């Protein structure tokens, strides 16, 4: 599903923020990515959701090397990835409903086929009565739920979430985690970056990656070093 082989990332002339990152994510697995603030979690996630190209190394996604992937092929990969951003990144002039429908509209789904899944998702996150509300009128937790619904509505192969439960109460956090787990059971590979240790213990069989100063540690031994293709 995902392979990183000695990947490094630097912004401009500064030192690398990610150093020699190598790991393999198996299809249908559940991973937590932890690390202190500034350890490089968000940078690693950016490489995963193709918002950034690495400075060195090899990144393989869905069995293809994406480092030198031509731009016109990026959308095809991105459509298979769902992302929950730490700052939500909801489009401010679109209603909650339209934000959630965005990935389906980009895929070209007909409006008649789109209403059902969007309504279902709104019900699931408990915002059906606020479907037409603009993001600015939603609370932080509500915005986060909309962001999650948007990330999962197109049934992505890979779901990446950056601190997805940071702004919701514990009950909602567990419900959201339950959604991730349900998607995982359907075959979606899930990567969740979080500080919340309690969250990690709630998912059976979840594996953990830990970033320390831009380098990857492997506390559970779940990740293979060196990666499979170098053995």
């Amino acid at each position, binding site marked *: 599903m995902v392979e990183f082989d000695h990947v490094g990332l630097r912004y401009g002339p500064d030192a690398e923020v990610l150093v020699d990152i190598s790991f393999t994510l198996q299809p249908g697995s559940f991973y937590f990515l932890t690390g202190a603030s500034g350890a490089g979690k968000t940078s690693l996630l950016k490489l995963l*959701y193709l918002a950034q190209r690495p400075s060195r190394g090899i990144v393989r996604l869905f069995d293809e090397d994406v480092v030198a992937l031509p*731009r016109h092929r990026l959308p095809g990969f991105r459509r298979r990835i769902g992302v929950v951003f730490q700052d939500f990144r909801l489009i401010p002039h679109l209603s909650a409903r339209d934000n959630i429908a965005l990935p389906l509209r980009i895929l070209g789904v007909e409006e008649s086929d789109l209403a059902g899944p969007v309504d279902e998702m709104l019900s699931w996150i408990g915002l059906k009565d606020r479907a037409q509300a603009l993001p600015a009128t939603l609370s932080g937790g509500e915005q986060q739920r909309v962001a999650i619904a948007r990330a999962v509505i197109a049934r992505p192969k890979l779901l990446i979430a950056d601190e997805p439960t940071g702004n919701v109460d514990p009950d909602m956090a567990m419900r959201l985690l339950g959604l991730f787990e349900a998607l995982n059971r359907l075959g979606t590979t899930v990567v969740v970056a979080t500080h919340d240790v309690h969250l990690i213990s709630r998912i059976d069989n979840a594996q953990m990656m830990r970033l320390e100063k831009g380098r990857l540690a492997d506390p559970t031994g779940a990740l293979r070093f060196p990666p499979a293709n170098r053995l």
Partner: protein
Amino acid sequence: MIIPRVPVQQRAMLAQGRLQGPTPWVLAILMLLTLLAAAAGLSLARSASGIGGAIADRVTVQIVTANPEERSRQASRIRRLAADQPYVRAVRAVPRDEVAATLGRWFGTGNGDDDPVIASRPLPDLVDGDLVPGSGAAAEARLRSLVTAQAPGARVIPHAEWLAPVASLIRTLAWVAVGLVVLMAMASAAVVIMTARAALGTHYATIEMLHLTGATDTQICRLFQRRIAIDSAYGIMLGALVAALVLALLAWQLADVTAGLGASAALGAWGWIFLALLPLLAIALAALTARVTLLRALKHML
């Protein structure tokens, strides 16, 4: 497609709002000036062409023999002989009254036939001739030798010599108008480029989100192209409407001018058709410029 078709729900991905910002108004002003310059260029070109056509093969024979009776005989002979030449299409003696009236505007007292000043002057006898079109300098030379044989002091004056500098000036002014039209088209394109770049800057976060959600450059471009093309079309059509009113007013005033340069300055059917097409070309240019600018800028985003 100039204005891409985008489903209503997808149009909403971009914040709504029309005729906001200066772009439509700037394009309206540029379109107004472009149409006025184009109309001026077209009418000047028609005037230059009209003058050229009117004078190209026309000559006047001026007979200045001192003895009025001999002068009159020479004029009659020249007219008769010239009319028999194959390279001469038409010939006529200019009546003395017409010569007197023409000169009276400049030298006389304005008393018409009784003008004492003109009456005191020895007026030349004039014969106007139209050469066969395209007969050129050879025909002119043959006529000159015929005239010299009949009246040694007479002069053959091609009209082109008088009015060629005027026609040349008018042609130059027409080209200046063409240059202005081109410059204003470039200025309009520059306005659209700046608008497209500003729109990309304003909506950067939305574009980034659309990209990360899997939108292609073409999908995003169509959203912006549609908006910019529609806004541009509003501005251009507004400018065209005002220009049409101004030109209609000028055409109405020109309708009273039935002779001379004024009459030849009328635009003609093709001129009006060309002017009507200009706004459509401008809208197409705006849409194309927006598309190229947007696609180039989007390529620099990951």
